[in-house]
């Protein structure tokens, strides 16, 4: 195995890792505030890609405006889900939220499929990146598509901004406070339930953003999020739901490790993430960055 080959795999892995990181980051933000795991995260990622596609078809919006508008739309859908549905389940065991969002996943996927078929007469559709990002760049050791480099870069920037906002700003302080002690936070005159809705919207918006970013690489397909969300769950288990930075690092790292592993021994490609998960569970049941008491 040459250094060149290894470097190529690292870059490939970073692209996949970018999506793992964005998705598990969104899951972590939501989990931090609401203590629930959003199964529909994969479906909302798909909804982001589909929205970008639909905006292009119906309003002739290009990639750049869609990159901003589609995640906002997905975020709003998320807030409606939180207000309208999840809210009814807050007194109950967190499993019910998982079940509800599982049902939403099945529903969303097939609804989008129906819309795509009836409105656009396709069951999956391509999405072209802007001209400024098409073509390849010479990295010295290989030719690499420009758009993929952009995905790695943008994902890193978004992840770091999210981390900064939550860990270092006043807004983040309020979020963390309402997570740790909603009663006291309320006493300071802060409407915790509004913050909950907002945070859910942002977490889901991150999934929508990942979806738009994924559209030019993979096709827009109603089931594009189904398998990805399961892999992302494994990534989350590896990292632990405890920390924002943890989910970012784990996302990228798992992406790179999986790419290298798959290149060395292709049959293992699909299962490697799960094997990693089993090993981590054996050594550190609460995940690499998770806190033991955070498991419930």
């Amino acid at each position, binding site marked *: 195995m040459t250094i060149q080959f290894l470097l190529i795999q690292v870059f490939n892995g970073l692209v996949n890792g970018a999506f793992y990181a964005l998705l598990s980051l969104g899951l972590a933000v939501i989990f931090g505030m609401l203590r*629930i*795991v959003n199964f529909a995260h994969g479906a909302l990622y798909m909804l982001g890609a589909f929205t970008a596609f639909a905006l292009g078809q119906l309003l002739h919006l290009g990639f750049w405006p869609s990159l901003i508008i589609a995640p906002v739309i997905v975020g709003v859908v998320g807030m409606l889900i939180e207000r309208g*549905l999840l809210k*009814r*389940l807050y007194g*109950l*065991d*967190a*499993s*019910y939220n*998982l*079940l*509800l969002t*599982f*049902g*939403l*996943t*099945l*529903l*969303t*996927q*097939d*609804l989008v*499929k*129906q819309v795509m078929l009836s409105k656009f007469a396709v069951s999956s559709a391509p999405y072209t990146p802007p001209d400024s990002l098409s073509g390849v760049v010479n990295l010295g050791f290989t030719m690499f598509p420009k758009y993929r480099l952009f995905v790695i870069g943008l994902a890193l920037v978004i992840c770091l901004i999210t981390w900064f906002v939550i860990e270092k700003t006043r807004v983040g302080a309020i979020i963390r406070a309402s997570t740790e002690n909603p009663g006291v936070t309320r006493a300071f005159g802060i409407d915790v339930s509004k913050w909950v809705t907002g945070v859910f919207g942002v977490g889901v918006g991150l999934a929508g953003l990942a979806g738009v970013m994924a559209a030019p690489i993979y096709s827009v397909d109603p089931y594009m999020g*189904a*398998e990805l969300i*399961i*892999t992302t*769950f*494994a990534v*989350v*288990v590896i990292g632990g*739901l405890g920390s924002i930075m943890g989910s970012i690092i784990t996302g990228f790292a798992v992406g790179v490790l999986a790419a290298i592993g798959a290149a060395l021994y292709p*049959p293992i490609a*699909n*299962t490697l*993430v*799960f*094997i990693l*998960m*089993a090993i981590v*569970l*054996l050594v550190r*049941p*609460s995940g690499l960055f998770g806190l033991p008491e955070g*498991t*419930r």
Partner: protein
Amino acid sequence: MTAPTDALSQSRAARHNRAAWLVGLGLLLLILPRLIYPVLALDVLAWGLFAVAFDLLFGFAGLLSFGHAAFWGTSAYVTGYLLGHGQSVPVAMLAGTLSAGLLAVPIAFLSVRSAGIYFSMITLAFGQMLSFLALQWTDFTGGENGLQGFARPNFMGLDFSNATVRYYFCLALFGVGFYIAYRAIRSPFGETLKAVRDNEQRAQSIGYNPNRFKFTAFVISATLAGLAGSMNVFGHGVVSLDAVNWKTSGEVVMMTLLGGTTTLFGPVVGAGIVSLLQDRVTSSNLPTGIVTGLVFVLVVLFFRRGVVGTLQHWMRRK
């Protein structure tokens, strides 16, 4: 998981109630192949036992497994493989059932140490891993072709080419599986399990090791799921990758919720409703996900007691 009702509480009324359900459901199952297509009736049995097995873990141990297709499917493949290699029906089904229990040992060991949502994610991930393995290990699973066309040799004079005979054979196995689940829940073991579910710290403080109970419950549940999986293969004469798909894991969750968790009979009723519903839906062009997803959402939001739970609730109020 705090269940909305606990139908197995010890009162006398509850015991009568339970006997009434047992007799009613038993009679219904006895005449089922007269009412609906026998192979479909067999589906109700297999999925019903699968759901009972699932609820043993979900309802009574508070562990929501999203990867139970792994056990159902592993047993299905082992059973199908052995039937294809000339083994008799009882041997193949027994081996299938045991293989599911065996597979559960490492998975249970790794997953019961985590609780709540973590447990669900871990089981989901292991289930997915197994479905990738099944896809690749074509010598054993037949890959996307699956396994079919294996013999179901007659056993003790029973003609297994007749779907009705297969049904009653499976009904006997269903009875055994159901009884095991029932005994497990009604025993001191089951009581401890519920204590762990309701308050793990307290159970621990009076000297129980919660993880050991969860582990045992997991393995029993997986083994019964395996028995159900082998029944399904025996019934249809087909195994395919659907047996290990994550949607299969989701389906059994839905059946259990719809029928009513912790009601013991509920999962069977749920399985019956879903099987019949799906049979109807396949005759229309409606995508199954829209129907299934909607049922899921509505049940979780408004109907958490499930069909049997709601009926029992009404009866108790009277």
